[in-house]
């Protein structure tokens, strides 16, 4: 049970400052995320990482023609784990270079057409 809980938590890692609002409500109540989160040190590190990832991702999305407000709302609905993967991905992958892909596809298509006609 415990290891499963840890597993769920490490996959969620919802420990950012945007986390569930009742965290600050009343000392004494143990929040969902702290049940799932791990030792204190790794926790603090992941809070920092998560916050960085979020702002990075918001910026990255804004660069792709999404208004900052909309980008923020989009990222807010993601878990920290999702944001983490996305943050790295948008930077690493030239995913948006669709113009180039279309050109390539056209070239291949034309070659194929020519070959077919013969």
């Amino acid at each position, binding site marked *: 049970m415990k290891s*499963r809980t840890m597993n769920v938590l*490490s996959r*969620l890692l919802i420990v950012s400052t945007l986390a569930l609002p009742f965290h600050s409500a009343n000392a004494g109540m143990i929040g*969902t995320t702290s049940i*799932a989160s791990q030792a204190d040190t790794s926790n603090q590190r992941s809070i920092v990482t998560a916050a960085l990832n979020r702002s990075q991702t918001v910026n990255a999305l804004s660069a792709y023609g999404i208004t900052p407000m909309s980008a923020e709302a989009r990222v807010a609905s993601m*878990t920290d784990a999702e944001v983490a993967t996305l943050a790295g*991905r948008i930077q690493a992958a030239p995913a948006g270079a*669709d113009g180039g892909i279309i050109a390539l596809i056209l070239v*291949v298509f034309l070659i194929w057409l020519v070959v077919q006609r013969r």
Partner: protein
Amino acid sequence: MVGCSAPLIGVVAGIANCFVDTLRFCGAAVLTTMAVGCSVVTPQTAALRTDWPRGVALTAEVADVPFYPQQGKWCGPASLASMLNHAAIQATPDSLADQVFAPGLGGSLQVEMVAAARRAGTVAYTLRPHFADLLREVAAGHPVLVLQDNGFGLISAWHYAIVVGYDYAAGELFLRSGHTHRLTMPFTLFEASWRRGNYWSMVVLPPDVMPATANEEDMLVALLAMAHSFAVQQALAPQSTAKRNPVVIGLQAFLARWPANELGNAALANVHYAQQELSAAEGALRMALRHLPHSIVLRNNLAQILVELYRCKEAQREIDQLPASVNAHGRFGADIADTRRNIAAQENAGRCLAAINQ
């Protein structure tokens, strides 16, 4: 990248630029390759021949899935609108474009498709990358959103479509795709395109409907992600929840199936607590403690709620049931100490109900 296992890894990758028109000529390429050896290109289709998933019908179709013909590169918004409509949520491609379409990328990211479904109050459940799971969901009446790569070789042509049915004897799947209301596609050709997107797919269901392939851990991850999204939205723009809270509905359905899940139980009570529904939170925790009498978290939280209901004696009884060993340096030692302090403070301020009322 956080060390997360199968389904969430799938929620990562690329952008779908909705290349439907490339289908025809890449089909030719795939068919040629298939002649070489289809078990290499489409291993899961080959495996189905000898190992059809048990209990899954050989033919099925969810006929009432609405269809929005894709405009431009909006296969993401169009397919998500269909999925949400089928889950009884109002949405159109236009209303979703601002949530899932990135003009600069010319497509929609998988993570955003998942997040947008969540925002709409549905449970977005990413399937394991198995043909058997996809078929099982469709057979259960759940359309499946898939990511395909309709390109070939090094060229990618990402596309979102919805599998609404299949006929195994005929070797065909039926999809809402692009401009085609009911696209017929061979299993092999479909797998070749689906495989290139790492077999990514998801179902989008009302919170009280469990995916046919749901497992305890993945389902809880999906629900807690939804709870997170809901809480953030409430914090950003508080809305009076006239309708029942979808997170509560989802967690209750989850606990009906897995009643002894500690985290799920704690989460349900916490969602009630966040909505200031203290009696509901108390009820949830008492129910949970029947299944998990030794849970420190559940008992501490029950005590804290009782304090806030001015039932100090009851609270004290609960907190005193915790073994002495967890109080001092245990994982939740600080929280338990807080709860004890809160009980004392409430008593000192004379705010406790008379014991006779407890």
